[in-house]
């Protein structure tokens, strides 16, 4: 048997092909959660490098993409831990806008919903946006004014369904921080959806 034949089952994949097949997907996956394009690019690069080193362990079990996404998840977690160490939770506004104006009234009912921001019966639903293929674009648009960490925490909780404990550990925050962040993100996102999409009949 020649050397080439012996090595064949474990031969390194063509990295260029890999990049073409999975690069965009991995990048979208990462930037959706990290909400930072350059950090997402780094995470993709680290993923490919780690994957090349560990290729023998993969041995073609399952799909290549699932395996790569598994590695990418670790890289995303590493990134969150690193930034959390460098910039610990500081000011209260780090958690996002409080939106006190939603509950400001001058008619003796202060701290109750201000009519302008109060929830209404929605005429359209997110399901319709999903059908049109617009849901994630709208989601992204509405979350973009929020602080990065709050938007990430919200995505990990509501989209990925991670537990509070996992998210707190990843972002180095307390569970009270997390609840405040989630509450503010929900307040903000709901208002944005209602104002721009569901509030009035088209």
């Amino acid at each position, binding site marked *: 048997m020649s050397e080439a034949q012996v090595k064949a089952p474990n031969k390194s994949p063509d*990295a*260029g092909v890999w990049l073409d097949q999975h690069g965009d997907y991995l990048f979208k996956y990462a930037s959706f959660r990290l909400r930072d394009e350059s950090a997402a690019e780094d995470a993709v690069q680290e993923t490919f*490098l780690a994957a090349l080193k560990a290729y023998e362990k993969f041995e073609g079990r399952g799909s290549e993409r699932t395996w790569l996404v598994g590695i990418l998840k670790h890289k995303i977690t590493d990134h969150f831990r690193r930034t959390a160490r460098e910039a610990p939770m500081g000011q209260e506004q780090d958690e996002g806008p409080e939106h006190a104006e939603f509950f400001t009234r001058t008619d003796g009912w202060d701290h109750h919903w201000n009519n302008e921001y109060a929830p209404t019966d929605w005429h359209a639903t997110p399901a319709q946006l999903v059908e049109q293929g617009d849901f994630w674009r709208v989601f992204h648009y509405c979350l973009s004014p929020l602080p990065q960490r709050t938007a990430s925490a919200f995505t990990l909780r509501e989209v990925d369904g991670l537990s509070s404990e996992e998210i707190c550990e990843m972002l180095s925050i307390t569970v009270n921080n997390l609840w405040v962040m989630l509450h503010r993100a929900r307040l903000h996102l709901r208002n944005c959806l209602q104002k721009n999409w569901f509030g009035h009949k088209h």
Partner: protein
Amino acid sequence: MGWYEKAKHAVRFWLLRRLPPCKQTVEVISQSLERPLSVRERVLLKLHLWVCMWCVWYLEHLQIMRDTMRENASEPELDSPSTPGLSPEARERIKQAISRQ
């Protein structure tokens, strides 16, 4: 409005004055998606929701949002062509890094 409607209205207003206001209630509503509420919190929330349609809608909207996000979490959002992929520069940089290995 008949006397019964009027009385019901009066009771609701009276109650809303005495309960924690919407601003605090929406925080509790958000936490109800994160942890089991205490008995006291549950009772106050139920009463508030009985008299405040706005907060009923708020809770409903949070649930619709969560359900839609989780149902669509897997693939489509990522493969949609409208989301930008890797820039040509980033692609080139990564290609270089890989070939150096």
